[in-house]
């Protein structure tokens, strides 16, 4: 038994243990602290009994309350499905035109569409849907692949250059980079395209490029340069330029033939959601 004695300096009892002449004062923990500790132990025991706690060989102790976070999430998701069920079934039955024309269905589509657009589309097309360089503006009335409800629904479903079997696919040749045309012809074509969009251009260069345009470009962009939505060829006569309106940008596009990728959403969004999204985009766009 250790020899407990009172320390002269502090007046506190020592524990009686001594190491090389050093003795330890016996300063007990505060009583409240001990009670918190005992309380925690009691809580832990109650918790083991009520809640899942101990791992075993085949699973774990379930606890009297049978609590399961996985089951909670599953039931919450189920409740959400039930809650959305009515709206989703309406969206399934109605045609795109019906959804857009019926005020109630359109309001539903706008709500769903806005939220889905913000989550999935806004990254490239912007929160307001006005796009940017290389990302089409979805609020105006210019469409690469068609701006009807069905066209928009199809584009969202299959994507553009997405690898989906039914993908929207167009390939602008890289006339300059792949040396399909000499640099002088690319420059002349640039003047021709600038002239097409109604802007002042070098008339002589444009005239030189006219046969080249008819031979190389008209098959997709049309003889008059108005484009062709069935093959995703943009209209060259309007004021809309996906990669920029100035000569450098146009020349760069003829040289390198850029084309962006839009993913397919078929596997990620339900058909009802894609319908709602198509109506949302169409209703808030400038028409067609």
């Amino acid at each position, binding site marked *: 038994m250790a020899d407990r004695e009172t320390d002269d300096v502090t007046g506190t009892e020592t524990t009686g243990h001594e190491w090389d002449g050093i003795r330890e004062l016996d300063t007990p923990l505060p009583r409240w602290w001990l009670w918190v500790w005992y309380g925690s132990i009691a809580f832990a025991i109650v918790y083991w009994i009520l809640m899942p706690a101990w791992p075993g060989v085949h699973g774990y102790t379930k606890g009297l309350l049978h609590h399961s976070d996985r089951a909670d999430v599953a039931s919450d998701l189920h409740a959400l499905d039930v809650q959305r069920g009515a709206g989703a079934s309406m969206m399934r039955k109605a045609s795109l035109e019906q959804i*857009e*024309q019926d005020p109630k269905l*359109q309001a539903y589509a*706008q709500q769903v569409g806005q939220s889905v657009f913000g989550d999935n589309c806004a990254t490239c097309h*912007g*929160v*307001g*849907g*006005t796009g940017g360089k290389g990302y089409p*503006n979805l*609020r*105006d*009335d*210019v469409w690469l692949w068609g701006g009807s409800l069905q066209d928009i629904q199809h584009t969202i479903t299959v994507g553009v250059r997405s690898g989906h079997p039914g993908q929207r696919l167009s390939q602008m040749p890289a006339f300059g980079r792949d040396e399909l045309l000499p640099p002088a012809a690319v420059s002349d074509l640039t003047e021709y395209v600038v002239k097409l969009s109604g802007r002042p251009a070098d008339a002589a260069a444009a005239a030189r490029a006219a046969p080249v345009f008819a031979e190389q470009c008209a098959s997709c962009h049309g003889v008059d340069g108005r484009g062709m939505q069935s093959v995703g060829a943009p*209209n060259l006569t*309007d*004021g*809309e330029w996906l990669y920029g309106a100035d000569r450098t940008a146009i020349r760069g596009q003829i040289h390198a033939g850029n084309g962006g990728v839009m993913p397919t959403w078929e596997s990620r969004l339900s058909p009802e959601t894609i319908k709602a999204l198509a*109506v949302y985009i*169409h*209703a*808030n766009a*400038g*028409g067609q």
Partner: protein
Amino acid sequence: MPTLIDKTPPKSPPKSYASTAVSAAARAKAKGDAKGGLYKPREPIYPKLVHGRWRTVKWAVLIATLAVYYITPWIRWARPGDLPQQAVLVDFTGRRFYFFDIQLWPQEVYIFTGLMVMGALGLFLVSALFGRLWCGYTCPQTVWTDLYIVVERAFEGDRNARMRLDAQPLSFNKLWRKTGKHLTWLGIAFGTGGAWIFYFHDAPTLIRTFWIGQGAMTAYVSCALLTATTYIFAGWMREQVCTYMCPWPRIQSAMLDEHSLQVAYLRDRGEPRGAHKKGQSWEDRGDCIDCNQCVVVCPMGIDIRDGSQLECINCGLCVDACDDILGRLGRPTGLIAYDSVDAVAARANGQKAVYKLVRPRTVFYAFALAVVSALTLWALIGRPEAELHVIGDRNPVFVRMHDGAVRNGYTLKIANRTFADHRFEIVFSGIEGVRLSQPGRAAGASIGVVVPADQVVAVRVFVTAPPNDLRPASLPGRFVVRSGDIESSAKTVFLSGAANQ
């Protein structure tokens, strides 16, 4: 307000505490408070029943105010459609306030502000003219305390009987009288809280659902709260609410002046006071026979002969008590009367008492009251039947079409305050040749939108302006919604995007 300063010397000279430190409790004990403590315990007040002119007025006001309080929620009022059929209803769920033919929306809360200011100015004016009539006659604290004293009197008898009963040890007689009184008080308190909640729900529905546990939680909580406050304030605290809790006695002393009417003891006529034997001469003495009746009837427990006091609620019961005694003595009444400080002083000096109702203060209060009343009434009458608010899209602020046309998006909130559905025609003015459209609809010069009765509808509107390169970046515009005679408009701006080119 001039106050009469009591110049009588204190009954015992102040003690010196220099010898030893004495606790506040010990000092309180020395002053006769047996329990000690920092505060003097409440001295019980046993107001005696009195009859007379002002008591009659008080009974009438009591009955009238309680009747208004209890009956109002039960008045039915025909309104079209599904609107509540209750004349006075604060409909929190529907976010409307109904008052007979007036229906207010939450954004019209300024009308209540106007009413509150009118109420305050009205109190100022009445106080400046006639003193604390509100406190003495119409304040709920006074009315319910009066009602509680009626109950107390019915169970325990009048002043002397009550004092005897309280001094007795507990007995069956005392027990049943006290129990009966408190149960009746609680019943009245419950009735008070119970009537309050009918102002917030359809009364005939709530009176059924309340008893079967189907009422709104707020109804139970409000009822419980008002039951508790009524029982405690009117049963237990009484004059202490006025003296210690209510700010109005403090504020009103700034409203009163020497011309305001207040209950006053005519010192010059009453003094010197003293007992009077029948047949004794009234020469060389005052009319006050020191019978103490003015004190025993006072619900505030004060002696009005000490001059005007903060506690006095101007209820006039001491006037009635004194007049009764004076009548029996065959002396002219009015020794205690509603009178002004100025008039009392004038009479004491042998001059003619003059009552000045028109004074700068009263003129100002009346003018301010008239202005605020007129403004509130004007705001109430001039409320538009339709209201339009416009929020311009923030992203994108504008969209340029392939031909250079520019489109702006707006959200319009159209409020239809009438009780009939209206088809509003929306037009945009300020820019030539604009076309309006809604999401997914063809464009036109205007848009028609149906707004159901008593509802707000939010409409998305796109405004497309024809191509014009010379347009400034920001153009003022105006939306107008119109349905027959009903019209509302709101200013907005149209952003052409010129600055972004």
